[in-house]
């Protein structure tokens, strides 16, 4: 393991200095924090690396999907409805599990307020279409 680890740092440092605009990605610490919060049991270092890779792939897929959805609707902007549709396709939002329940369950209060200023029912606060 030591042999594998040692020669790495030198070329890596060169690489980062060569291409300055680093690809934006969610902070590793945040991914780690969220993931370990959900699994509740110890996770090895290498397993976290796999999770990071998965996250990158997730965002790539997400961008493709969102593009397809908004193009399909003839828009250039991704609307809330596109994301709701996406989550419905993913099986996250269902009839038994509406989007605002997920929002209430997973997002902190300050964000919840932005997404559901008043409870969705009847009110036209969140444009559903």
């Amino acid at each position, binding site marked *: 393991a030591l042999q594998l680890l040692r020669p790495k740092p030198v070329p890596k440092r060169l690489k980062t200095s060569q291409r300055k605009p680093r690809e934006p990605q969610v902070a590793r610490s945040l991914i780690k924090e969220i993931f370990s919060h959900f699994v509740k*049991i110890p996770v090895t270092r290498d397993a976290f690396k*796999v999770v990071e890779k*998965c996250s990158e792939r997730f965002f790539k897929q997400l961008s493709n999907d969102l593009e397809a959805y908004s193009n399909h609707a003839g828009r250039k902007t991704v609307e809330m409805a596109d994301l709701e549709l996406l989550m419905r396709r993913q099986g996250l939002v269902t009839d038994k599990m509406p989007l605002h329940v997920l929002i209430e369950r997973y997002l902190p209060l300050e964000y919840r307020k932005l997404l559901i200023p008043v409870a969705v029912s009847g009110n036209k606060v969140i444009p559903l279409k």
Partner: protein
Amino acid sequence: MRCTAPRSTLRKIIKNHKPQLRLAANADLLVHLNFLLFLHRLAEEARTNAFENKSKVIKPEHTMSAAKVL
């Protein structure tokens, strides 16, 4: 758990993949929510894998096979 979403980072990531795509206001929050739920699923899947292998820790292979399921 830290509860702020890396909003500008999320926008940057999508911008990086799809430069011409615009995000409506607060749509990035739903992207964050989607990401949280994705990690949640991955975590659940990896955990059941670990339990099936009678492992007390999550190893790379557990997350790998979890990722394949999703």
